[in-house]
């Protein structure tokens, strides 16, 4: 009887504690709404030094003291906005390199409109990217540049390096898809030729819509995205730092942009369905990309829990190239965690900066 009374009291105490905690969280709601309206997009001071169509090339002047001769160019994907690489003061990949004295640039591809649906990978790699590299070489006076490509930007950087090895001194890839033979990832499975008719899709829609991309990414982990995340926000609504990071992250995730139709067709058909890049048969414009032509130092960064670009898709890269100086670093995190995760900030990026510093 006595122990039963104790248990009842204990339950009441727990319930009261939970009720108080919930009240505290709910009281934070107006602050969360205000915070959501003031999400930052890019924190390191930058200036636009080159523009072409929708493309903008950002330069990070830092404190003006450069310690390395070779400039570094960040090449981001076409599916999202590039500010994930410079999202918060203590979670900025760009800031690591700027602080280390690198002459740092970042390509913002802009937002493709309906008028851009005919742009192909050739336009992006042999056009825009080539012009950016030329501009960076002109500004810095350096013969070669270092490229750091993230996700689809990594695939594009790889193609550029294979086509123009004379302009690239070092190549760093972050979760970049190279060997698309794997069916480990859901995206790989969904985009298989027998499951997805990319020609009809592009012919009918023109560009690949941002909503389509967003819902596809959401469907990779529906329970986590639709239930897990809102629950974790509700539980930690009174934690200002957590809410700031959560809102910044979610704003970026929901900031998808359309991919030009022909680029989407090239990517799905020639890479996801035919895996031509790994077979050295990928054609960009008039030239065929031969990965064996990449002989510069290469650093391949992988996320072992990546559901978007599974490690099996990026790990084979170092076996396909002609470089002798090559290194792979794996981190137990997801696709986005590789850029802004705490473990990446603490362990991965200092290593990557040191690796590049030795070779610049």
């Amino acid at each position, binding site marked *: 009887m006595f122990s039963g009374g104790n*248990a009842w009291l*204990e*339950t009441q105490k*727990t319930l009261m*504690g*939970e009720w108080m905690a919930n009240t505290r969280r709910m009281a934070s709601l107006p602050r969360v709404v205000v915070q959501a309206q003031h999400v930052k997009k890019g924190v390191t001071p930058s200036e636009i030094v080159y523009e072409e169509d929708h493309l903008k090339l950002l330069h990070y002047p830092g404190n003006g003291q450069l310690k390395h001769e070779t400039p570094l160019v960040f090449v981001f994907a076409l599916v999202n906005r590039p500010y994930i690489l410079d999202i918060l003061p203590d979670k900025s990949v760009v800031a690591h390199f700027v602080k280390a004295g690198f002459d740092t640039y970042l390509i913002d591809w802009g937002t493709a409109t*309906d008028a851009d649906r*005919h742009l192909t990978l050739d336009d992006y790699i042999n056009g825009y990217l080539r012009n950016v590299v030329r501009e960076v070489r002109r500004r810095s006076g350096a013969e070669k540049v270092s490229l750091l490509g993230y996700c689809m930007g990594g695939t594009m950087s790889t193609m550029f390096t294979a086509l123009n090895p004379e302009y690239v001194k070092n190549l760093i890839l972050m979760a970049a898809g190279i060997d698309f033979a794997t069916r480990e990832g*859901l995206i790989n*499975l*969904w985009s298989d030729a027998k*499951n*997805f*008719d990319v020609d*009809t*899709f592009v012919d*009918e*829609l*023109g560009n690949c819509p941002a909503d389509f991309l967003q819902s596809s990414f959401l*469907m990779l*982990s*529906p*329970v*986590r995205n639709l*239930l*897990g995340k809102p*629950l974790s926000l509700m539980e930690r609504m009174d934690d200002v730092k957590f809410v700031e990071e959560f809102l910044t992250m979610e704003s970026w995730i929901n900031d998808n942009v359309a991919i030009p139709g022909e680029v989407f067709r090239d990517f799905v058909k020639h890479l996801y369905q035919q895996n031509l890049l790994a077979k050295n048969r990928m054609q960009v414009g*008039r030239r065929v990309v031969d990965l064996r032509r990449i002989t510069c130092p290469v650093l391949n960064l992988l996320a072992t829990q990546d559901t978007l670009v599974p490690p099996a898709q990026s790990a084979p890269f170092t076996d396909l190239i002609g470089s002798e100086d090559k290194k792979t670093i794996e981190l137990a995190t997801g696709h986005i965690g590789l850029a802004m995760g705490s473990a990446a900030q603490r362990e991965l990026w200092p290593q990557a900066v040191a690796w590049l510093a030795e070779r610049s």
Partner: protein
Amino acid sequence: MGSDMNDPFSNMTRMWMEMTANAMQAWQPTLGGTASPELVRKARSDFLQVWSDWCEELMRSSAFLEAQKQCMTGNLAVRKQFRSTLRKMQKELQIAGREDIDALVVAVRRSERRVLDQLQETSERFQALESKLDCLGERMERFMEVFGGEEDHSNGDGGKKKKRHELRD
């Protein structure tokens, strides 16, 4: 009894049953007594994990892939039909539509490709011409050396002096 495992419906039913059983296991520690908030959170997390695994398995199943493909094909067909009707109207009203702009862009792209082809061809011809000129230059030099040598020989010391003078200049 004797259910066909290749049948999408049987597969879905099996997956659902497995998921339900696992989910019940996740909630088991909290049933029949007072559970601490930590235990409830752990059970919730396990439940979400089970559900997540089930979704993953479902989205990899042939039934889901087939349904997804049919859904997309159907949507695109409706869209195509609608655009075709719209196109007819545009044509009647003599309004430029997406197809006209596309045709224009394709035409410009073709012209661009032709110009680039011509440029590449011209560039290759220039290169070939350059290498031929280089060869010719080398042969000329060799010829001049031989010819100059003979001339020097025939002219004696005067010729040598003349060449050294030229070199100095």
